[in-house]
């Protein structure tokens, strides 16, 4: 067996064993396809799983009640350890040591009995461990003894005696307390909140007493507080206590804080302890706060992702705990409970409530408000905001117990912007967003059919639909919340991940025919419950349940619902509960978004419409099923086409207000009838009906991309990503669009985000591999595609992509073998001819490819909708047979060029001049020549958008040919100029003469059409970047803007030119104007960040980088600016973090290493930076890095000579960064040098 096979088996196995036995068989049939061996292997494994029983469940050496103490809550009899402990049986002073009762880092505590016959007395003796008698420990030990000697309080364990053993080690004797740790005592005695508070106040007394004696305990925790039978607490273990008395300070200042940190118990440590700052009585107040939190809630205040010191420090110093009244409903991170024999199972919420003599409701009521506030006041990060003494805290609790007003104010987590007029329940409209988490099924007791889990997702899904229909708040779609299904997620953390203001979460308990649904609506920012409710319904009437829930939730958020809103909320789609239940099951399976899920969904949707033939939503579901199966080439179009259209039409006929129906209809109309206009109409209608319907957004985005309307498509995809940030398909749609827009680097970056966040999402890997292949990174592409195939299964669809990428990588043999395998599949299942054509095309078998494409048209293969923009077919473009097929698909892209972000509208101008009244100024070229020139121009534009060196060369070639045919084609000249200019960024090292050619072309453009905005912009761009004639550049760019006020590109360049001159305010105002023209353009957003950075407005630059990254998370330039800004501000961790992201995007290239040297130089690793730098310089002839960047790294390292010599070189080489020499903050270390003034004098006019 191979590891790959093993993984395949595991995937099927893990899913199968979770299914009820009767569902396994159908699942295996689906999952294994025709692979009988696989099926046999999984079946055997499942049989073994069932037969294994508790095989190897007991450790190799079976258990015995022998406990070495690690759990702070357990008691500690150590029979066996005693046998080998030399202290046992020893006489120490007047006492005989009996057994160990506890141990810590440096010593152990033993139970001992008085042995001098005077009287019987049991005591605790504390001894230093053998080998631990270092100076430091001895000092601490004596310190503790000294402290205990000063304390005499009924709630503090007393010091009885002390001395030195025969072998010279100090010891002391304390009263022996027979009791339980306080937490355990409270649970075992089932103490109510009131009783717990009473006990806690006694602990406060003890701590306050110590404080009065100038002793800070520093390690208050449940295991250090024992409660004896009588219910009185005793505070123990002053092992790391600190005496504030200056008299003793000589002794304890030797105690390094770092060591003290290791000694304390991190869960109870205050932020100042973690940070190593001075402690005060407020430090113990904090630990008391943690203790009270635990006693009341049964939870630790913090959730730690791991126990690394860094994580602990971060959480303790930065995160606000949840309010106790909220925390008690979290089933996660329960403190270990002590099984009681009666009552609910321990380690459950039920047990937690039970041993406090409460229910969730009564407990919540008791804690909410005053007790929340008291606990949170003790837990403030800032010591001065806490109770200043244990006494103050005790007093406030007393006030609470006596029903008086407490001193603690309400607590709001940091960063909550709460204005006084706003109360919970009246959020302002624009900031309200809501997510509904899949409900948890608490227990499915018998009597019901299997598959109860659908209810948790189904109910959430229905609530999302209903609440979303109000359009009063943004709802996260089901696909975004599914990741929390079956996970015990912290609802508030989920809320933050989803970026919502409110989150609704709850549980369903099924008992017989009754459903009990408990829900709470949480304000994510404040961590408090806004509303909670419990609903009991007969399980047959889920609809009634949804009515009640959605109405109450809506009312909690919107004080006054209108009548129309109420009606919309009640919209059920069907009045038949059974049909509805089928629909919900269908949605559940649909949301799994895999082939098996689709199949199951169809079954349920079909049942739903057979139960209620007027059920519009279910018809829309059926239509979507066929749409998706067609697009993913699972079924042939002959089987899906009619069905999809029919179901979608039925859906909109039944309910013309349903976005779901129109979206499905629009997509079906396109992929089955290739009626582009009608399709767009339907998709737009869907978007009007419900702008938040994500599937609708996606279909529209696909549609626009197919037409080559990439800016619109990207806007749509980004909009969908705002609604559903965590849905893999949404991110995938964005990636898919970037890929077809030929923005491969961005597609790669964005796809990497997807494969990182959703490593098992096959389409993510697939798209990544396609983009890598187009970027020429063939080996990575093939490897990534292999991963995609693993995840997606060996379907003809995934294999065809792999075969195509293998062919593109030159691995022809492997590709052909795979192609054969795919063709063999045709015998048993549908294989899309479009996909076959793809493979032939990449194998350079044009004949084979064209044949398949023609066949694809015959059967109306829906994927043909992408033919106009699919990068993989580029080698066939222009072939008459290819064009013929494309023409038949009626794709408007056939006669339309792709556009870029922020592009100006006059790019549509014809060779004979711009369109419009004055176009007659230029004598028109003969019609067919003009057509041909325009075609070439469009082809050129198309290659420019590929944003690669090769693309630019191809583009230049097309523009050259265009101006040969039409010498007065100004726009072609201007584009040629830009393409030559851009070569300086895209080709390493920049080719000689690129700038000169650019300038020549720009001058020709102006000459051909002096009124062409683009021509002046192109010229201006060259003037400031190449000639550094900023004044002349300004004149040209101003002219370009005058000629076309909407030329966002010209405005952006103008802004850059102003920045280079140091006119920052003007630059910022100009780039903001560009931003108004193209508000969602990531390029302009990044330009603004860049300009802010150069203006040294670093914090604003960072903020702007973050908004730019929201528009385009994969932008490399944005990451670079963000990192620079962090570096300038000395925020090294952040800078290094950004660098790691950049490296993940771009892999190891010379540029990446230059960036690494840059960040290391800025962040205190000069040696490593120098090493990389000298390597870069040594290899510069083979691996290009601009001289300017090398100069900058020298500057960051404080190496002026190096910096100046490389700046001189940058001047010679016309390094592109040099434009901003005057303002670049990274060169600040050089500015005082006379050589810099000299440089500036030479530089720029």
């Amino acid at each position, binding site marked *: *067996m*191979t*590891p790959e096979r*093993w*993984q395949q088996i*595991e995937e099927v*196995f*893990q899913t199968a*064993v979770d299914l009820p036995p009767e569902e396994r068989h159908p699942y295996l049939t689906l999952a294994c396809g025709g692979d009988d061996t696989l099926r046999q292997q999984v079946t*055997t*494994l*499942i049989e*073994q*799983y069932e*037969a*294994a*029983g*508790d*095989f*190897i*469940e*007991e*450790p*190799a*050496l*079976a*258990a*015995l009640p*022998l*406990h*070495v103490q*690690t759990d702070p809550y357990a008691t500690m009899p150590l029979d*066996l*350890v005693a*046998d*080998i402990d030399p202290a046992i049986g020893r006489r120490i002073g007047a006492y005989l040591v009996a057994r160990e009762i506890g*141990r810590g*880092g*440096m010593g152990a505590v033993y139970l001992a009995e008085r042995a001098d016959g005077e009287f019987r007395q049991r005591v605790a003796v504390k001894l230093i461990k053998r*080998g*631990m008698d270092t100076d430091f*420990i001895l000092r601490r030990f004596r310190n503790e003894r000294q402290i205990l000697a000063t304390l005499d309080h009924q709630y503090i364990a007393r010091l009885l005696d002390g001395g030195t053993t025969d072998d010279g080690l100090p010891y002391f004797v304390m009263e022996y307390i027979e009791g339980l740790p306080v937490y355990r005592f409270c649970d075992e005695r089932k103490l109510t909140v009131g009783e717990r508070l009473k006990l806690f106040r006694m602990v406060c007394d003890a701590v306050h007493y110590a404080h009065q004696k100038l002793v800070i305990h520093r390690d208050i925790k449940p295991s250090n507080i024992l409660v004896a039978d009588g219910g009185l607490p005793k505070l123990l273990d002053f092992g790391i206590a600190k005496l504030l008395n200056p008299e003793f300070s000589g002794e304890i200042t030797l105690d390094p804080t770092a*060591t003290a940190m*290791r*000694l304390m118990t*991190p869960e109870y440590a205050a932020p100042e302890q973690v940070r190593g700052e001075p402690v005060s009585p407020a430090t113990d107040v904090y630990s008391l706060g943690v203790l009270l939190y635990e006693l009341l809630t049964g939870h630790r205040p913090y959730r730690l992702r*791991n*126990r*690394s*010191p860094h994580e602990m420090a971060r959480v303790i110093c930065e995160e606000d705990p949840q309010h106790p009244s909220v925390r008690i409903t979290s089933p996660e991170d329960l403190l270990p409970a002590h099984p009681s024999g009666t009552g609910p199972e321990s380690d459950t919420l039920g047990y937690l409530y039970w041993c406090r003599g409460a229910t969730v409701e009564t407990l919540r009521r008791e804690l909410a408000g005053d007790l929340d506030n008291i606990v949170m006041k003790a837990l403030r990060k800032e010591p001065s905001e806490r109770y200043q003494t244990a006494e103050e805290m005790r007093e406030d609790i007393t006030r609470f117990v006596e029903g008086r007003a407490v001193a603690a104010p309400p607590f709001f987590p940091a960063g909550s912007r709460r204005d006084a007029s706003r109360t919970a329940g009246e959020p302002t409209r624009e900031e309200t967003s809501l997510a509904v988490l899949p409900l948890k099924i608490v227990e499915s007791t018998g009597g019901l059919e299997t598959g109860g889990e659908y209810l948790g997702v189904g109910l959430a899904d229905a609530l999302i639909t209903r609440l979303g229909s109000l359009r009063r708040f943004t709802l996260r779609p089901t696909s975004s919340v599914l990741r929390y299904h079956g996970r015990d997620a912290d609802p508030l953390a989920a809320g933050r991940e989803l970026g919502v203001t409110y989150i609704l979460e709850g549980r369903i308990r099924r008992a017989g025919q009754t459903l009990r649904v408990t829900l709470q609506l949480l304000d994510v920012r404040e961590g408090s419950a806004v509303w909670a409710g419990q609903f009991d319904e007969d399980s047959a009437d889920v609809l009634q349940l949804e009515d009640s829930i959605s109405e109450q939730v809506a009312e909690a958020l919107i004080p006054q619902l209108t009548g129309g809103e109420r009606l919309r909320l009640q919209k059920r789609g069907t009045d038949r509960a059974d049909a509805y239940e089928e629909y919900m099951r269908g949605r559940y399976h649909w949301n799994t978004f895999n082939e098996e899920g689709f199949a199951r969904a169809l079954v349920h949707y079909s049942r739903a419409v057979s139960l209620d033939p007027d059920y519009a939503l279910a018809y829309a579901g059926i239509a979507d099923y066929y749409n998706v199966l067609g697009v993913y080439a699972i079924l042939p179009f002959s089987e899906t086409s009619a069905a999809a259209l029919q179901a979608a039409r039925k859906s909109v006929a039944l309910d013309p207000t349903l976005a779901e129906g129109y979206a499905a209809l629009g997509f079906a109309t396109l992929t089955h009838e290739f009626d582009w206009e009608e399709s767009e109409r339907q998709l737009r209608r869907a978007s009007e009906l419900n702008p938040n319907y994500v599937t609708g957004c996606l279909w529209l985005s696909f549609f626009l991309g197919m037409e080559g309307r990439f800016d619109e498509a990207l806007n749509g995809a980004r909009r969908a990503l705002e609604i559903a940030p965590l849905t893999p398909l949404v991110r995938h749609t964005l990636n898919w669009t970037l890929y077809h827009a030929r923005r491969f680097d961005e597609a790669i970056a964005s796809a990497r985000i997807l494969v990182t966040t959703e490593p098992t999402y096959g389409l993510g890997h697939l798209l990544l591999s396609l983009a890598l292949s187009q970027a020429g990174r063939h080996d990575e592409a093939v490897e990534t595609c292999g991963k995609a195939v693993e995840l997606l299964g060996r379907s003809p669809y995934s294999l065809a992509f792999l075969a195509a990428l293998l062919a593109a990588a030159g691995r022809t043999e492997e590709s052909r073998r795979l192609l054969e395998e795919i063709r063999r599949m045709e015998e048993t299942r549908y294989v899309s001819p479009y996909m076959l054509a793809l493979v032939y095309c990449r194998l350079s078998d044009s004949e084979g490819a064209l044949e398949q494409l023609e066949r694809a048209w015959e059967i109306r293969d829906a994927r043909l909708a992408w033919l106009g923009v699919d990068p993989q077919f580029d080698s066939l473009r222009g072939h008459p047979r290819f064009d013929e097929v494309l023409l038949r698909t009626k794709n408007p892209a056939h006669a339309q060029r792709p556009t870029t972000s922020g592009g100006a509208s006059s790019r549509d101008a014809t060779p004979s001049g711009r369109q419009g009244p004055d176009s007659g100024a230029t004598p028109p070229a003969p019609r067919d020549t003009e057509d041909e020139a325009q075609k070439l121009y469009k082809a050129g534009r198309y290659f420019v958008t590929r944003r690669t060196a090769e693309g630019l060369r191809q583009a230049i070639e097309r523009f050259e040919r265009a101006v040969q045919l039409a010498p007065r084609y100004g726009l072609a000249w201007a584009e040629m100029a830009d393409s030559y200019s851009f070569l300086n960024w895209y080709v390493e090292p920049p080719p000689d003469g690129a700038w000169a050619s650019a300038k020549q072309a720009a001058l020709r453009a102006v000459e051909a059409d002096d009124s062409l905005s683009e021509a002046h912009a192109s010229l201006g761009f060259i003037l400031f970047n190449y000639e550094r004639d900023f004044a002349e550049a300004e004149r040209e760019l101003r002219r370009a803007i005058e000629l076309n006020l909407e030329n966002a590109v010209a405005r952006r360049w103008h802004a850059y030119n102003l920045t280079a001159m140091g006119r920052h305010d003007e630059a910022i105002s100009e780039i903001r104007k560009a931003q108004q023209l193209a508000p969602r353009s990531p390029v302009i957003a990044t330009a603004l960040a860049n300009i802010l950075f150069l203006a040294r407005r670093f914090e604003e630059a960072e903020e702007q980088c973050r908004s730019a990254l929201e528009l385009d998370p994969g932008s490399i330039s944005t990451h670079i600016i963000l990192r620079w800004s962090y570096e300038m501000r000395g925020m090294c961790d952040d800078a290094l973090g950004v660098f790691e992201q950049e490296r993940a995007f771009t892999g190891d290239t010379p540029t990446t290493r230059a960036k690494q040297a840059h960040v290391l130089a800025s962040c205190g690793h000069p040696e490593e930076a120098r090493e990389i730098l000298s390597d870069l310089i040594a290899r510069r002839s083979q691996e290009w890095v601009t001289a300017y960047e090398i100069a900058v790294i020298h500057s960051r390292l404080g190496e002026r000579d190096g910096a100046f010599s490389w700046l001189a070189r940058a001047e010679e080489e016309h390094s592109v960064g040099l434009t901003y020499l005057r303002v670049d903050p990274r060169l600040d270390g050089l500015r005082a040098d006379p050589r810099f003034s000299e440089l500036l004098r030479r530089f720029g006019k």
Partner: protein
Amino acid sequence: MTIPSQHDVTRLLVRLTDGDRGVLDDLLPVVYGELRRLASSYLRRERPGHTLQPTALVHEAYMRLVDQTQVQWQNRAHFFGVAAQMMRRILVDHARAHEAEKRGGEFQKLSLDENLDASGGERDINLVALDDALNRLAALDAQKSKIVELRFFGGLSVEETAEVLGVSAPTVKRQWRMAKAWLYGQLKNT
């Protein structure tokens, strides 16, 4: 051979946590020696109804070998990882040495007799065969093999295992059930 002091072990462990895998060569013999010493000391004091728990051994070895004031929290996880591997070697070596004897060796009796009484005598785990199967499993899926080592030989709980491997507890549980099913099949057929 000189026995490394507590200080040495602590230092090695800190370096191991810092990513210095080279120290394993120095660390393993010490841990191994200590575990073996402890194991035989427990076994000599064997009393009716008393068997021993690997977790206790490992914890105890940790207490003895490591200066806990000097190590950070995650060193513990590293130590347990090493110790589980050692426990496996000790137990399997022991079982191998007694393989000739019918019904296996001392350790097997210890681990199995009571269980046999409890649940019908079906599970007579052949530690040597299990060890071989685990090696085969490691070739297919190293993490699963490690999980079995930590849990079965090291006696670690699911949570401790998760901590050692730096994965979540549910992941450990899922991996465990697959490994268990497969190993069960492997041992049944030997």
